[in-house]
């Protein structure tokens, strides 16, 4: 149950802080999203720039990039996912602890981008793992990555801790491990995870 904003401000003036568990919990979740330190292609350069002094992603709580998936909360797919790399990306995602989020950064990560018809490029990482925020761009500017980050924070803030739409880590029945594709004789097998991705309906 949300607290009336006006009442909250009035109480704050009197030195009384009123909140809900949900608000406090989500505030904590969204304010300390530590990304995983790995890059796939040229988008990674923009991601690195985003973390540096000029753009300073640390302002949003992603204070430090963790070099281990065990310590990371956010996976930024920064660049082209080749079919050779895709199993490793899925495996890294499986190794991350809940709660975990994914940002697909740039044209390649969301669809294969300019390399879509190549023999070696995966047509979007969302075929294998659930993606929270997609950012277009080739590569997206650091501002776009910050925008995606803020979108993810808004998404976390809006999540209810109970009910159908509760976060995956509070749902015992939610899928935790995602099948790692096998590198076959002609292509990855399977070519997508039907539990995560189905062919979208194109509206023209």
């Amino acid at each position, binding site marked *: 149950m949300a607290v009336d904003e006006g009442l909250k401000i009035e109480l704050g003036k009197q030195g009384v802080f009123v909140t809900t568990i949900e608000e406090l919990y989500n505030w904590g979740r969204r304010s300390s999203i530590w990304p995983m330190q790995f890059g796939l292609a040229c988008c990674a350069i923009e991601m690195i720039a985003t973390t540096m002094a000029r753009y300073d992603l640390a302002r949003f709580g992603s204070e430090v990039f963790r070099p281990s998936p065990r310590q990371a909360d956010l996976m930024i797919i920064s660049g082209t996912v080749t079919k050779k790399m895709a199993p490793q990306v899925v495996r890294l995602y499986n190794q991350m602890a809940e709660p975990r989020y994914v940002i697909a950064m740039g044209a390649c990560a969301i669809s294969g981008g300019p390399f879509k018809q190549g023999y070696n490029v995966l047509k979007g990482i969302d075929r294998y793992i659930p993606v929270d925020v997609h950012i277009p761009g080739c590569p997206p500017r650091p501002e776009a990555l910050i925008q995606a980050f803020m979108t993810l924070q808004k998404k976390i803030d809006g999540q209810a801790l109970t009910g159908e739409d509760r976060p995956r880590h509070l749902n015992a029945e939610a899928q935790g491990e995602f099948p790692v594709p096998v590198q076959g004789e002609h292509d990855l097998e399977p070519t997508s995870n039907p539990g995560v991705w189905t062919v979208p309906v*194109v509206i023209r």
Partner: protein
Amino acid sequence: MDGAGGDSIVKTVEEIKAAIEAAVPGAGVTVVHNGSPSGQHSLRIEPEHAVEVATFLRDDAELALDFLSNVTGVDFLDKEVSEKIKVTRPVTKTVDGLEQTVEETVEETRKHVEPGYLEAVYHLFSVAKKHGPVVLRMRTRNRSDEVELPSLTPIWRSAEFQEREVFDLYGIVFKGHPDLRRLLMWDEFKDHPMRRDYVEPDDYEYEPTPHDKVLARAQAHKAAAAAGEEKA
């Protein structure tokens, strides 16, 4: 690269060919002319003598081709050639009420298949003498079972990864290569994607903005999927 530069040319391709043939007897060098303005002619060498020729090109004091900058592959498909040949053969005819055998010249179309081949192309430069490129080519016998060529990695170390790439994408097997594994694709992969008859997997199920060839492939995929559903 700098063909028009004048002083950058130490020797023309014909002179290099002569030098190779003098140094390596029976090398069998063919000059492949390039008609474009760049005039970058190349030398086709026989695989049997390739290592000797390459060693000569590297160690020759005048040429001193000490730097291999690029290795690539080319795929030539099997070609069906039809040619018209005039054939003279006896024909039985009735001339003036009598049966006679007359020699007659008939035009006949004959078809035969010229086997394709794979080519490895090497671009050599000389850092010491500041000239190049000298382009070397080697051909395999065919593009199915006799696809072996000698590796030039023992002569120029920089060929190692590039020959691996050519092996991966074209399927040329380099004999004498120290570590011939796939480079870009995974080990279990069976195809050679840069070959002209490579059939890519039919993964055109979602094309939001198709055009040209992609549109055709997406429509073909849709038709095939619909036909599959009807059967099931």
